[in-house]
């Protein structure tokens, strides 16, 4: 139904066209990240048999449903573990893991830490939505609002700092709006000899759904446009997102 045979989309050859439109909400940032990732794959002239994409659960877990690549949709929290073992058994593979909060920071953070410490060359693309989406929009360890419905008063977890202290060779943070820079970062991350992490702060439709004020993702995109500052090589200690007054993005660690 959605095929266009005369003029295919540039990345249609890597997509399962029959599965599109996807399950994601209108304007979800995950689709933009997938689009950027597939275009970057075209740029590095990689052998597509030597690429494996691993995903976990939740909205990001659905990414593997739409790719015509070697894919594995792992169980809850085991995405990084699976990717690490895959890479250690098959060193010639280029393993890319799409993660969300539930996949590592909440349930199995030690796999991420071990992969970083042992310098396993997997590429982590971490899509940060700030909330649990499936289980009734609860606050996460990375939720930036200090006061929420369930009166969470924790400070948000600083993912780039964790990645750097584990020994990642490449750490960057972007939003889907900075799409060209995100693509360059992915290109760098895919070619690193060690552990590399790219955090993408993604607009999610469900932020304010519990208040009954369901807005549009375009409002969130405009928020990112107004409230992000690009600061390359910023010390990773300063990268907390607190109270959402200013989000620092850029490339923070690049060890070749």
């Amino acid at each position: 139904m959605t095929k266009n045979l005369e003029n295919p989309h540039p990345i249609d050859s890597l997509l399962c066209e029959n599965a599109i439109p996807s399950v994601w909400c209108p304007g979800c940032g995950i689709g933009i990240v997938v689009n950027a990732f597939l275009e970057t794959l075209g740029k590095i002239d990689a052998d597509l048999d030597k690429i494996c994409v691993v995903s976990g659960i939740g909205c990001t877990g659905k990414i593997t449903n739409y790719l015509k690549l070697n894919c594995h949709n792992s169980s809850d929290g085991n995405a990084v573990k699976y990717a690490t073992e895959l890479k250690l058994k098959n060193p010639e593979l280029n393993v890319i893991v799409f993660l969300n909060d539930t996949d590592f920071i909440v349930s199995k953070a030690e796999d991420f830490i071990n992969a970083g410490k042992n310098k396993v060359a997997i590429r982590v693309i971490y899509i940060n939505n700030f909330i649990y989406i499936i289980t009734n929009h609860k606050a996460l360890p990375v939720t930036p609002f200090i006061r929420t419905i369930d009166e969470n008063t924790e400070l948000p977890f600083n993912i780039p700092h964790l990645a750097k202290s584990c020994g990642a060779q490449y750490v960057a943070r972007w939003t889907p709006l900075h799409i060209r820079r995100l693509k360059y970062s992915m290109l760098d991350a895919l070619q690193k000899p060690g552990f590399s992490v790219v955090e993408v702060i993604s607009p999610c439709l469900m932020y304010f759904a519990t208040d009954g004020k369901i807005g549009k993702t375009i409002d969130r995109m405009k928020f990112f446009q107004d409230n992000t500052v690009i600061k390359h090589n910023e010390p990773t200690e300063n990268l907390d997102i607190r109270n959402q007054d200013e989000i620092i993005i850029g490339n923070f660690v690049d060890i070749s």
Partner: protein
Amino acid sequence: MCGHQSKNSKKLNLTYRKLEFKIVSFILYKEWKEMKFFDNNLKVPSGEIHIVKERCKGCGFCVTYCPTNVLEMSKEFNAKGYHFPIVKNIDNCILCGLCEMLCPEFAIWPTTTKEKEANKVLK
């Protein structure tokens, strides 16, 4: 004699300089003609926008972030009940590809059609 020689050598130098200048400028000119960057400065290539309306979910990223206001939301609905973008004035499109990169549903992309004509104007 010495004066003549020096004059001659100066003349020779000059002719060599002129020749060199000509050769260099010729090479530069050829390079300039082949460089697409300058072509684009003289005339922006125009193209065509492809929209698969059944894929679209009406998020509006393409309409909002198009730098030259080529697109607008339609008043019709597609099969799933979303408004999809339509092309308002294709002549303004500069083929930056931002709509393609920002679309989460792979529903819109530009292609070049009149690029050859744009190059003909130069030649």
